[in-house]
């Protein structure tokens, strides 16, 4: 029982990071049918920003990271994605790869390809003991922040005027536009929101791993993408659930695989993902909106 609770706590925190990454990708996909692989680089650059600004005062560094990643997301949209907005999804996808690799190698150039150690908020690694379950404080912080962000996003989408517009745009962009929803503004807001999600992942990831590298975003973007696919492209709830599922799967395999197979954990994760998609090719919660695009 204790072991199970332990795994559950780890799965929830790992799943939180994946869910936030998936949400950042799912949000943009919902509105403009763009799978933004550069989302991983948003996270990576956030991590470098955090390292560069961490010295004097941590809260300020977190704010700086948020600001920098939001700005980066907005600039990426403006410079790279807006010119090809009306192109077909393949062009959008290739553009996102181009942006992703550009940013990745830009940072290889500036910061070098090697991972850098960065001791950030390591006091949060101390465990918080509940009965016999030992949960690092950071995991609790991660889960808490994720829940708050999810609640805030749900409130925004359900209860604000802008949220209704954004949902309408995700369901049928052209019709929403016809009704007066301002395309540039709604897409910019979606990118800013994905920037916030990416920056939060930057902070939580660096605090958990204590290191960063130019390629660190790849894994997160890939898992985020896979999570949105499992959840059903176009469904934000699906993206979140998909993220938590992949996180849970990763942690469960980590705990249950024989020691000599553990280095191949990701192979097992993705093999199971393939099986899930064979059984449900459209994902677990396929968004209604993905069905028809006028």
């Amino acid at each position, binding site marked *: 029982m204790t072991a199970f609770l332990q795994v559950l706590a780890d799965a929830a925190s790992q799943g939180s990071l994946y869910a936030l990454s998936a949400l950042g990708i799912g949000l943009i996909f919902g509105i403009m049918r763009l799978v933004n692989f550069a989302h991983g680089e948003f996270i990576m650059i956030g991590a470098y920003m955090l390292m560069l600004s961490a010295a004097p005062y941590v809260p300020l560094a977190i704010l700086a990271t948020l600001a920098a990643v939001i700005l980066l997301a907005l600039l990426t949209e403006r410079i790279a994605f807006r010119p090809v907005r009306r192109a077909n999804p393949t062009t959008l996808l290739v553009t996102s790869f181009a942006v992703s690799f550009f940013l990745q190698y830009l940072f290889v150039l500036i910061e070098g390809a090697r991972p850098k150690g960065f001791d950030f908020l390591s006091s949060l690694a101390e465990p918080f003991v509940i009965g016999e379950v030992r949960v690092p404080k950071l995991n609790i912080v991660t889960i808490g922040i994720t829940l708050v962000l999810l609640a805030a996003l749900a409130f925004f989408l359900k*209860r*604000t*005027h802008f949220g*209704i*517009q954004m*949902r*309408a745009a995700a*369901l*049928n962009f*052209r*019709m*929403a*536009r*016809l*009704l*007066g*929803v*301002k*395309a540039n503004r709604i897409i910019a807001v979606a990118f800013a929101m994905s920037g916030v999600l990416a920056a939060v992942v930057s902070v939580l990831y660096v605090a958990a791993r204590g290191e960063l590298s130019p390629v660190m975003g790849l894994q997160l973007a890939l898992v985020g993408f896979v999570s949105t696919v499992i959840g059903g492209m176009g469904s934000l709830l699906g993206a979140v659930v998909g993220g938590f599922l992949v996180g849970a799967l990763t942690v469960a395999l980590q705990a249950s695989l024989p020691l000599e197979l553990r280095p191949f954990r990701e192979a097992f994760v993705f093999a199971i993902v393939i099986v899930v998609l064979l059984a449900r090719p459209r994902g677990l919660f396929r*968004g*209604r*909106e993905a069905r028809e695009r*006028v």
Partner: protein
Amino acid sequence: MNETIVTGALEAERISVRFGGLRALEDIALGLARGELLGLIGPNGAGKSTLINVLSGFQAPVDGTIRLDGRSITGLEPHQISRAGVARTFQAVRLFQGLSVIENVAAGLVLRRSSRHAAMKRAREILDWMGLGPKAELIAGTLPYGDERRIGIARALAAEPRYLLLDEPAAGSNEDEIGALTETIARIRTEFGCGVLVVEHNMGLIMSLCERIQVIDGGRTIAIGTPAEVQRDPAVRRAYLGEDED
């Protein structure tokens, strides 16, 4: 600067549309005045929907001009024409399927209402006005066809258009619904003061509703007049002969 200023009309002149070799519209004109109820009828394939698409910017004509209250709107994008005051509905209604009925209407209020509260209040008023109040909280995708069409009209009205183009609003409705719809469209004209263009196959609705009817066939206008005039017109009779219209 030498544009003719005609206040209060949506006008199309010398409009031609071709799809490959097919002449969908050939040198056709249409004028819809503010406060007017104009019916647009014709056999299947006559070009009615194409004409609505041209008026709302969904189809660029190869030739001709469209003017809105004297200002040329030829070549504008659909959302720009919508913003300028021309709203339309679609044969396939295209509601936002996952949103509630009231959210569907509120989504169309973004230009006029700044806050969610104001938008929802206005959306509620429009739904109540159309007798859809009790269905406001239902999810749009779950409703019968006739309701969806009326929600489509409510959503178009939310933009407070000066001209409203209705593409087959009665399709899929039963006799009772058509009666209620006829009354609603008549009230839209009086209460919103907009010009309403109705494309419809249901002759009962068109004849009882519109003071003026334009009949097109093969992409050309074959008659314009009052319901009585149009019904007597030999060209119209020829166009419809043998067609089983209800």
